[in-house]
């Protein structure tokens, strides 16, 4: 195994007074403008003083301490870590797009792209209108629930404050409901991973604002009673919210609007391959059916004749308002647009097809190797769950141990311990852009790790062995908070 990499010092530890990247400093400008003394800073901020090469080398070396899609297979369930085409970045960074101030006259070329993106998203989700403003999935969720709330209020139906979520829901669902001033009612799933219909019937009523669902669910299976779920909720006066986290699984195969959903958020950083960037920026466009159209967050791109313009509060007086300082994560949206043009009509359908092919293939291979699928009677969607509860009992290894050991084999870990209701679980999402050979290599590693469980379990419990660091002391991190560098006294 490769030997442990040396630790990269903090940038502050490379700093020396008087050093700097001089060519980056603007020329001094003659003049007498000054900050009044009482508003002036007392001492300069403690920023590093390094040469340009030192900075370049430091941050390049930090980059080399990361796993990424460009370097590793990244089967992280529910995150859709597919290839991020380089063209999407290159064209989004054309100088005219990059240098454009958002408050200048409406840029027709850029807005044509945004308008077409809205139209395409509307078509593939079966919705009536789209706003690109939300800056992440969680903000899209917020927008969706805020629209639902505004809809009920506009009808003077003031008692609807309850959001129903299945147990398996992503944590943002209940957190979003709370941010919108709603309460959360959790309902169980049945043994096959479907929403428990009886529990749903018992849960709905005059307080129901909406149900939030992901379909395929976070359990990796398609909710096949979705039409019945929609009927029950609609008849009770509630609306249906589609969490687009797993849209990759059904792209072009079935449209949320046709399933009966009233509102959807789409994680453009998942299905439409904009970069995850080490944790953002995402983009969480929202689509709505006819009932919620007046409430879309602003701005939205409108078209009048051949001219595009931003629709604002003047055009949408019932809008839930603005969620960002400008137009959301415009550059991310542009990357999603470019990706969609590269894929086209047929390419989008192939996304779901090959995502499903890869997931089902990997699930079968792992089952054949002795791993237990959480829902063996079901098709995998674009992802599936392996539960290690048997291995946990037999060998005392945990899902976390397997996850960490996979890093040593050069694979990013699958999602662990989510969804919470499956014990010792790995949620595995290979995506459509991985080749069969890479899936096979991953299976081989899992088989090898399975062998180690029985023969050398300490290799798992002490993994990873080849990363820049071993397992970190999270308890100490939270108890002895060290959140910012301070110079030695």
């Amino acid at each position, binding site marked *: 195994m490769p030997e442990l990499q040396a630790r990269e010092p903090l940038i502050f530890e490379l700093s020396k007074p008087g050093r700097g990247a001089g060519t*980056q400093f603007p020329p001094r400008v003659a003049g007498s403008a000054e900050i009044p003394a009482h508003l002036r800073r007392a001492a300069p901020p403690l*920023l590093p*003083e390094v040469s340009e090469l030192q900075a370049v080398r430091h941050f390049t070396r930090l980059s080399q301490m990361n796993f990424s899609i460009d370097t590793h297979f990244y089967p992280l369930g529910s995150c859709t870590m597919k290839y991020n085409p380089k063209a999407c970045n290159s064209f989004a960074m054309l100088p005219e797009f990059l240098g454009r101030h958002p408050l200048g006259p409406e840029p027709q070329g850029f807005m044509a792209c945004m308008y077409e993106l809205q139209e395409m998203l509307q078509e593939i989700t079966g919705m009536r209108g789209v706003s690109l403003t939300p800056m992440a999935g969680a903000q899209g969720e917020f927008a969706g629930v805020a629209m639902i709330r505004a809809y009920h209020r506009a009808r003077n139906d003031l008692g609807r404050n309850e959001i129903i979520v299945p147990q398996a829901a992503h944590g943002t669902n209940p*957190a979003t409901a709370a941010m919108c001033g709603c309460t959360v009612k959790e309902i169980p799933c049945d043994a096959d991973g479907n929403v428990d219909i009886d529990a749903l019937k018992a849960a709905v009523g005059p307080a129901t604002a909406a149900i939030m669902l992901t379909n395929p669910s976070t359990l990796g299976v398609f909710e096949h009673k979705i039409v019945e779920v929609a009927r029950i909720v609609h008849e009770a006066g509630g609306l249906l919210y589609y969490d687009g986290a797993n849209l990759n699984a059904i792209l072009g195969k079935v449209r949320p609007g046709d399933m009966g959903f009233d509102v959807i958020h789409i994680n453009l950083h998942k299905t439409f391959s904009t970069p995850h960037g080490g944790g953002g920026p995402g983009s969480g466009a929202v689509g709505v059916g006819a009932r919620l159209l007046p409430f879309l*967050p602003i701005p939205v791109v409108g078209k009048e004749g051949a001219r595009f313009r931003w629709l604002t509060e003047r055009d949408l007086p019932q809008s839930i308002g603005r969620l960002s300082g400008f137009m959301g994560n415009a550059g991310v949206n542009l990357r999603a647009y470019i990706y969609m043009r590269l894929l086209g009509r047929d390419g989008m359908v192939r996304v779901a097809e090959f995502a499903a092919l890869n997931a089902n293939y990997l699930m079968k291979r792992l089952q054949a190797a002795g791993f237990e699928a959480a829902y063996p009677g079901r098709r995998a969607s674009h992802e599936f769950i392996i539960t290690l509860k048997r291995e946990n009992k037999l060998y005392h290894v945990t899902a976390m141990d397997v996850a960490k050991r996979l890093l040593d084999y050069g694979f990013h870990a699958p999602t662990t311990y989510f969804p919470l209701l499956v014990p010792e679980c790995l949620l595995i999402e290979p995506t459509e852009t991985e080749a069969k050979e890479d899936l096979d290599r991953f299976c081989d590693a899992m088989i090898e790790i399975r062998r180690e469980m029985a023969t050398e379990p300490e290799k798992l419990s002490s993994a990873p062995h080849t990363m820049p660091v071993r397992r970190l002391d999270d308890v100490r991190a939270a108890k002895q908070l060290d*959140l910012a560098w301070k110079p030695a006294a």
Partner: protein
Amino acid sequence: MAFIPHTPDDVARMLELIGVRSIDDLFDEIPGELRAGVLGVPPAMSEMEVGRLLSERAAGDGRPLNFIGAGAYEHHIPAPVWAITTRGEFYSAYTPYQAEASQGTLQLIYEYQSMICALTGMEVSNASLYDGASALAEACLMAVRANRAANSRRILLPRAVNPVYAQVAQSIAGNQDIVFETVDFDRSTGCTLLDSLQSYGGQDVTALVVQQPNFFGNLEEVDQLTDWAHQNKVLLIAVVNPTSLALLKAPGQWGTPSGGHQGADIVCGEGQPLGVPLSSGGPYFGFMATRMQYVRQMPGRIVGRTVDTEGRPGFSLTLQAREQHIRRSKATSNICTNQGLMVTAATIYMSLLGAEGLARVAAASLQRTADLVARLARVPGVKPAFSAQRFHEAVLLLDRPAAPVLAALARRGIFGGLDLAERYPELGPALLVCATETKLDVDIDAYAGALTDIMNSSRAAA
């Protein structure tokens, strides 16, 4: 096939192992009546064709000479910033949940948090939020949690704070019954009126927001505002421009000596000036910092330094018990991402500039704006609106509506500023203009020359 590596032989072998005859069989759990027809989206294009389309559209939008600020600022971005930020290892990595395989991103965020603390004079920073406007909304929600002395959920939001920020705060925080009350500004100085705060003295108020420099570019008397807040058990939320902090008093030191220099309680703002391109409106990032005593009320990710099982230093996400994936409906916010890639750019930017470079950027911007205002004020029909000391923006009053003047400037390739007619009708025809270090004498001359022509010709036409 676009980005699909499978050969027909691969597909056949995979289907055989799965035990189905076609890929379509994998979707047999979807009820037939729900299956979609042919999508109404255009057919695929090659990379070359998409490149041509995008280049043409970009060229049509042009590269105007920009004098608009209003929350997004044009600065020089050193070449290494995006060359490194777009490395695949940063660009295509996920959130650093697997800490051992994400030490690069985690260490970078720790360095970023340290730099934000240094700039703001605060003890702790998070790993960033979506943008400046939503950061203020989150700061307001945080203030409600942090200020245990107040029950009113009332927040004082001066009109001199960016009006879009006020709208966003209302959209986001308004759903939790937070009430925003406006505080007027002085028409001659363009600064928040301390007098109009007095009526709130002794009342149950959660927080006061102070933007420095304010939306008009003017410098507020932050020490007095901070003292007032603390004397009245009101938390002080500072909204600041990070470039300006190279020269301006850090919010952590706001307050007079007699008030004990207590400093702001929560500091937030738009991080875009730190190496992030204007990019037609985003993505940017919001920053947030606070006192250690409020760290558990702060939303968003936080990275901490700790040790591994062999005692070596390393970094991990910490205090996750505040977050949605653990606390669900009791979380501090529903936020699960930060703006990681933007923070990467900002951290490299701050490292290259350092305190001296950033101070040079701030000083050049200050001087260029002073030069711009002096030049434009000599144009007939144009005068500065306010007397307060400015940073790198200013309001100019015109003797006629601003919209046609701006349209005429745009036809000459100049973005002359932001029309304030809709947001601040009481000012009369007014423009918010900005010049940073990127504007040279020749640019300011070009603007002044064009404005002179336009003002003269529209006068002649009248």
